[in-house]
């Protein structure tokens, strides 16, 4: 994502240009700062680390036995066998597994933190069915002890999303799972924004119970369409403004609208859709909706019925983020199958992801993926660890638009790495050491690398 700070140089330059091009003097150019709450994230101490002789799940679908991973200056420098580096701190990887840092595309940590007290219910702005103007990053309490627990489970990157009470619930934010007193200190640099949308039961229940639209699924659809009709018009106004300004005219900039800024960001391809959507027929309509308004349908979250339309999902190049077996809490979650992610994954160009939506299972996403892998293999699939790890790493990174930065163990990527005490698809597996940008952020055997939230300090 490019940074669009309001640039005074640009304004004065534009003013100068306008002076010599038209009959009317141009007012300063108006542009919208797309990054007003920029990341201040700084990696912790980056060492040169060489992990030797481990089983390496690369995140690209490969499993390398007896292999090495070298991190230098926060970046993965090499993955392979017999890597040497004189100045590296060597970690003996014998008997251990190394994977990319685990990525959860669906979390509410910080927005619905522990303790879950009245004053902490900051994840769902249920005052209007379309609240594209809210940004969940403005709700995040960085002291949520859930971040520490997730880090102990190998989570290095996570997307925090608003809740699903609204049709369009607001922007999500991608974080590095690092202790910081501010949200900006955790913010993943240059990760695109996400936009939370929700299908089905939740929005129609929330607003239907207040006797306002939407009270039905067709009301839901009308709500999204109206919002994108407005956004299309807003985008057109801005484009006309830019065009006229560039032509030397002195147009009046459109009136700023926070809600439509976000929706325009979707239409411009800057903001990615993350759509809470369980059912096959609804996902199918959401893919058509995206075509109707010319944006990308993004990722379906909690896609319980993805297996029913797995071919279409792959054809449309969308991701589906799934649980192993949550079901039955709502009607739209009744048709769960344990092999859902495996079915989605079986199509070419698919993007199957395992997500948590939980402060509990985010601590064991490896086990969540294992449940799917083993149950699918019981049913005749042939999925190995090298494949299953992609559901938590590279595919998740693709969904968030950060696959050029993290999500796999490849030279040049950020040093987001987990060393597991054994095969991570075992119930007995534990993350022993966790690295973010080549810096050790967790060590199960060293209290010095076990952060504690301010909230718990002095209460134990």
């Amino acid at each position, binding site marked *: 994502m490019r940074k669009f700070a309001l640039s005074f140089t640009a304004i004065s330059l534009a003013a100068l240009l306008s002076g010599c091009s038209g009959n009317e003097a141009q007012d300063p150019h108006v542009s919208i700062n797309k990054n007003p709450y920029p990341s201040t994230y700084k990696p912790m101490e980056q060492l040169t680390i060489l992990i030797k002789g481990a089983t390496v799940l690369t995140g690209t679908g490969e499993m390398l036995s007896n292999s090495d991973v070298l991190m230098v200056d926060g970046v993965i420098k090499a993955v392979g066998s017999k890597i040497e580096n004189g100045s590296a701190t060597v970690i003996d990887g014998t008997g251990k597994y190394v994977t990319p840092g685990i990525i959860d595309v669906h979390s509410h940590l910080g927005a619905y933190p522990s303790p*879950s007290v009245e004053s902490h219910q900051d994840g769902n702005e249920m005052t209007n069915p379309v609240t594209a103007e809210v940004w969940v990053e403005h709700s995040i309490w960085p002291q949520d*002890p859930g971040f520490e627990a997730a880090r102990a489970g190998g989570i290095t990157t996570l997307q925090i999303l608003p809740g699903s009470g609204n049709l369009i619930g607001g922007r999500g934010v991608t974080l590095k799972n690092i202790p910081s007193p501010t949200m900006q200190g955790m913010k993943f640099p240059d990760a695109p924004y996400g936009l939370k949308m929700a299908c089905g039961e939740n929005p129609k229940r929330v607003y239907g119970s207040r006797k306002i639209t939407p009270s039905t699924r067709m009301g839901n659809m009308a709500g999204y369409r109206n919002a994108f009709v407005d956004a299309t018009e807003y985008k057109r106004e801005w484009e006309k403004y830019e065009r006229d300004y560039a032509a030397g005219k002195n147009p009046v900039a459109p009136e700023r609208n926070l809600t439509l800024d976000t929706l325009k960001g979707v239409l411009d391809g800057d903001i990615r859709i993350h759509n809470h959507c369980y059912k096959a027929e609804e996902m199918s309509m959401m893919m058509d909706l995206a075509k109707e308004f010319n944006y990308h349908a993004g990722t379906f979250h909690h896609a319980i019925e993805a297996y029913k339309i797995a071919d279409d999902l792959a054809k449309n190049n969308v991701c589906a983020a799934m649980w192993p077996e949550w*079901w039955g*809490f709502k009607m739209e979650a009744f048709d769960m*199958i344990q092999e859902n992610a495996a079915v989605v994954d079986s199509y070419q160009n698919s993007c199957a992801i395992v997500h948590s939506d939980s402060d509990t299972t985010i*601590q064991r996403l490896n086990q969540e993926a*294992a449940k799917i892998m*083993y149950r699918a293999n019981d049913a005749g699939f042939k999925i190995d660890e090298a494949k299953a790890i992609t559901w938590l790493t590279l595919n998740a990174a693709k969904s968030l638009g950060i696959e050029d930065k993290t999500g796999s163990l490849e030279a040049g990527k950020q040093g987001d790495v987990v060393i597991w005490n054994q095969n991570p698809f075992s119930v007995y597996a534990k993350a022993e050491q966790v690295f973010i940008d080549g810096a050790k952020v967790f060590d199960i055997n060293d209290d010095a690398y076990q952060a504690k939230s301010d909230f718990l300090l002095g209460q134990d």
Partner: protein
Amino acid sequence: MKLLKPSLIALSLLTSCSVLAEKIAITNTTIYTAGNSGVLTNASVVFEDGKIIELNPSSIKADVVINAEGKILTPGLISTMNQFGLVEVGAVSGSRDGSAKKADINFDPSYAYNAETTLIPFARKGGITRSLIAPSSWDSVFPGQAFTILMNSEFDSVIDTKTAVIANFGGASKDSRASSLIELIEKLKGQQKKLKDAEQASAKAEGDKPAKAKEPSDEEVTLTALLNGEKPLIASASRSSDLLQLIKIKQQYGVNIVISGGEDAARVKSELANSEIPVMIKVVSNLPGSFDSLHASLTTAGELEKAGVKVILFSSDSHMAKNLRLDAGNAISYGMSEQGALKAMTSNVADVFNMDAGEIAVGKSADLVLWSADPFEISSKVESLWINGEQVSTESRQDKLRDRYISKENKPRGYIKP
């Protein structure tokens, strides 16, 4: 005598299901007895008429012999605090019967129980053969009483009602936490006085013409059973202060208290052990969800076990109850012993709630699970499962949905009926 591999068990049961008196032996198995016999390798067990009749007999005499090929056999797991048969879909109010508007200490939700729920076959995939079903309501101190079922989906699967009283303690949004403790104490005190008065009255009446005893109310019957220690009281509580109050109540009134939740129970583990109060733990509940559970930890179950507390592992999520064994695996990872974790889902539950199961021992119900490998490991699965000596399938509605959608048949899915 038939010699069968596990894969043939299903077939053999088909041919034998009408002959209930059949004697079945499982041989060449590693038995986790969950009892004093510990782990028995290369062992065998024989059952008949729903009961285990022989453990490691010197010679096998049975109508059906199943060679388990060294695989692990455990007692059927017993889940607690679930709502099987009281809920189909959480958000569908008409399918939700686990809480009463006017709940009281006697509310018996077993009247609502539906043996044909889709939740039970799915839970069997996790090796669960019995369950303690509990009403739930946070609006009331006493949501009602729990009942006991067999997980065989049969119409007669409720085997005990009013098994235990449920009570909620700890932080509440509308009232002081003291109120719920006082409510319990007042009830117990009141009943104690009534019993004493009745005793005195009957002593006084001796010699005169005997006074006609008044029929006790349902609540009085329940309270008397609590005071006698006959009926367990499952007290949901977590903070150490609440646990200490409940310990006092046990000491003063003799109530057989069982803690459920107990996130902070390790703070008072020796007090709990000394008072012989069992604790029901959700292994994966390790975050400070409230000020009542600031010390929640994955190590709690193991710490309590080491302190000598009788631990029961539970998860109140009925739809995903099959994961209980994996919760146990995580408890083992964080300090619980393997056999302790098994007992916490079998014999400990049976002990606390007076069930004739939960252990592979002569005389116990033949609730048995044969596992493909380590019962706590994700890669393992249930190979065969018996409830009261009868084999029950682990196939569920989810399997049929899967088979419909992965079918290679070239016709609309609606016509494919696996």
